[in-house]
């Protein structure tokens, strides 16, 4: 109860953030000239071409692994943060436990460090990929004659 009262300023700050952002969005909505929803002005700009299909693309799966890595390191950080606030963190019995803990998780990170570079494209492969794509595009433009 007393702790909650200590943290009420955080709640007030969060509410203030929401109110401010909401207020700014509302003000811009009031000041905007209104556009009909289906008119040409609301379609996305594609340098003169007609946009086809929805704009949501699929990201490669590789980015998920970095997020998982972050979560694991975050949990490890929370454990170490708990230990850092104690007075016995430099005892011999505790230090080797912490060392084993950190080493286990860093072992996992080391495995990730070995496996993840296989998913990158090295410099040579990027170059050949670009060259191939460029040749393909030139062939297509030859066929279609500049659309």
């Amino acid at each position: 109860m007393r702790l909650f009262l200590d943290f009420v300023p955080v709640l007030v700050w969060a509410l203030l953030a929401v109110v401010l952002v909401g207020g700014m969005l509302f003000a811009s909505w009031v000041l905007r000239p209104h556009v009909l929803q289906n008119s040409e002005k609301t379609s996305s700009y594609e340098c003169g071409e007609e946009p086809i299909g929805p704009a949501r693309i699929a990201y490669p799966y590789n980015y998920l692994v970095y997020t998982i890595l972050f979560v694991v390191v975050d949990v490890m950080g929370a454990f170490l943060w708990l230990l850092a606030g104690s007075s016995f963190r430099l005892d011999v019995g505790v230090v080797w436990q912490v060392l084993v803990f950190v080493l286990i998780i860093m072992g996992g990170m080391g495995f990730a460090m070995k496996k993840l570079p296989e998913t990158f494209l090295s410099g040579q492969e990027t170059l050949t990929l670009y060259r191939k794509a460029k040749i393909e595009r030139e062939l297509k433009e030859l066929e279609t004659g500049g659309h």
Partner: protein
Amino acid sequence: MMQVDIWFEQLEFVLIAGIVIFLAWLALEHRDIVYAAFFFGFMASFVAGFYLLLEAPFIAGMQIAVYTGGISALIVFAVLLLPRAQDSSLETFASPRRRRIGLVISSLVGMLSAALALFFPWYETFSPDLPPLEFNLELLSQWLWSEHGIYVMMTALILLTAIVGAIAILQMDKAESLISIEGEFGIESVEEPIDDEASIEEPSEEVGNE
């Protein structure tokens, strides 16, 4: 004075409980799944407020760091990586039989928790000797690391399993065209690689051509 104290505490609890339940309902039922993922992160922050009511300041901080900062980000990533999920026209409604079963089970759980919450004599079990809050972090770390340090090691192994499993199960390919590129290092390739950073990564084949 005691009356106002108890009344205020009940008001806080009801307020935060109401917000959390409302956000959780929104997170599950909103049509747009991006909204649902963000409502889940929002709800996790308010649950940290719950922990503050229960006199656990470190748990509140850990909840915000791990749940809102990590797991909520994971769910937003799931929404990002699966473009089919963002199509709200795919939400098919459950059959009436499923709905009835869900209603029965949820009412059972609701009655059980209502019985526990309202009829159990909670105030008698409230212990009068709580350690003061300044020592919470110290005592908690002593409990976790000194007395029960073995469980921390087991959690480290579980986290290790998470990393290794995620990388091993999820076969991340480079571009499929790279499989044939190995034999094409001819006259046009350079001796030295230009750079070894990740420049482009091709999307996997199933979601490339929508």
